[in-house]
């Protein structure tokens, strides 16, 4: 399976964010999308996730145009965006249980507790998300990387609010994913400490 982006242009309101963007991502490859604030990094990631439509150009997954088989594409995709994607009144355990069910890969309570413990959140599983710090919320969200098994990860600023230890943990996960044949499309304002990948500057 590969992700192929051809001649993509994106407009938001009256403003043309970028045009004629093309790249191809194969298994074992990762792409770092860089650019100034407002350059269209998030818009590009949302386009690649099938969340919005481009002005022109096409995006295909495994040779199939994404809009032609959106549900099939979403089975293979994990997209973590800017927003927390967590319900503040629910606990991390409840949030992750629901998301794993919605992702079509229901996780057991033990599996979720083990993942939360991996992220240093043992003992916080039954607290409402609203009482957690920004970094802890981010770690709850990133727990989905270990709960959904899929080849394509699209991550928008995944290092935000993380401490040094969590950043290293995340690098390990990203490297592991790519080395096992996964594909990674990521935006980050900090230099990526990973093996050589594609750099796309907007």
């Amino acid at each position, binding site marked *: 399976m590969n992700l192929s982006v051809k001649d993509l242009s994106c407009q938001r309101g009256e403003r043309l964010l970028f045009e004629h963007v093309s790249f191809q991502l194969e298994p074992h490859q990762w792409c770092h999308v860089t650019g100034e604030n407002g350059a269209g990094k998030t818009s590009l990631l949302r386009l690649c996730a099938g*969340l919005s439509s481009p002005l022109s150009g096409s995006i295909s997954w495994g040779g199939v145009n994404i809009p032609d088989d959106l549900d099939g594409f979403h089975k293979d995709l994990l997209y973590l965006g800017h927003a927390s994607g967590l319900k503040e009144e629910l606990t991390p355990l409840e949030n992750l249980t629901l998301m794993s069910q*919605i992702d079509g890969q229901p996780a057991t309570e033990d599996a979720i507790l083990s993942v939360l413990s991996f992220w240093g959140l043992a003992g916080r599983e039954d607290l409402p998300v609203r009482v957690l710090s920004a970094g802890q919320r981010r770690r709850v969200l990133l727990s989905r990387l270990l709960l959904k098994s899929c080849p394509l990860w699209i991550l928008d600023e995944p290092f935000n609010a993380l401490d040094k230890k969590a950043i290293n943990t995340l690098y390990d996960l990203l490297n592991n994913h790519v080395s096992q044949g996964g594909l990674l499309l990521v935006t980050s304002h900090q230099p990526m400490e990973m093996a050589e990948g594609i750099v796309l500057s907007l």
Partner: protein
Amino acid sequence: MNLFSTIYCMARRDLTLALRHKTEILTALFFFVIVVNLLPLGVGPDPKLLSKIAPGVVWIGALLATLLGLPRLFAHDYQDGTLEQLSLSPRSFTLIVLGKIMAHWIVAGLPVVLITPLLGIQFNLSGPIIGVLMLTLVLGTPVLSLIGAIGAALTLGVRGGGVLLSLLILPLYIPVLIFGAGAAEAYRAGLDMTGYLWLLAALDLLALFFAPWVSAIALKVALE
């Protein structure tokens, strides 16, 4: 995960959230009771008049109480990014939306049905008429939630969306109001009311088929 478990899983989540925000349930219920109780203060205490207008008053109260929570149906999920995540699910987004609408009915519609006997007694309604009124509410309030979801989806993220939602949805509630209140009135007059009930049931099916689907499309547009 099959069809029903997708609906169940979403409805359960929204009900859990509603139970942790009990004020939302209580606000809709108190609003309903207050609206229904305001009318006697305006038209006077004549028991005959009150029992005559009661079904219509209860229906208007139910309609406004349902409308009260609609702007929040998708807004919270939109703001915290969970709606975006739900739209990325390989599961049917239409069924996810249906689960949310069901939860909305349980929170906003069902309490209205359950408290109606008390208000019926207050309006001097006989037991059988209260029964008929409850039956029309059971059939009609889901339509209010279903049609309301379309409006909530269409106005998601729009500034002043609450007012726009009311303007958009209230005219569509008119048939439900006519058939709902009409059934109780027909029963009181000794006429056959089954036609009204069948029409409400038909509206239920029609709305159940179209509303989640249209709402899901509108939500995807809002997420773009």
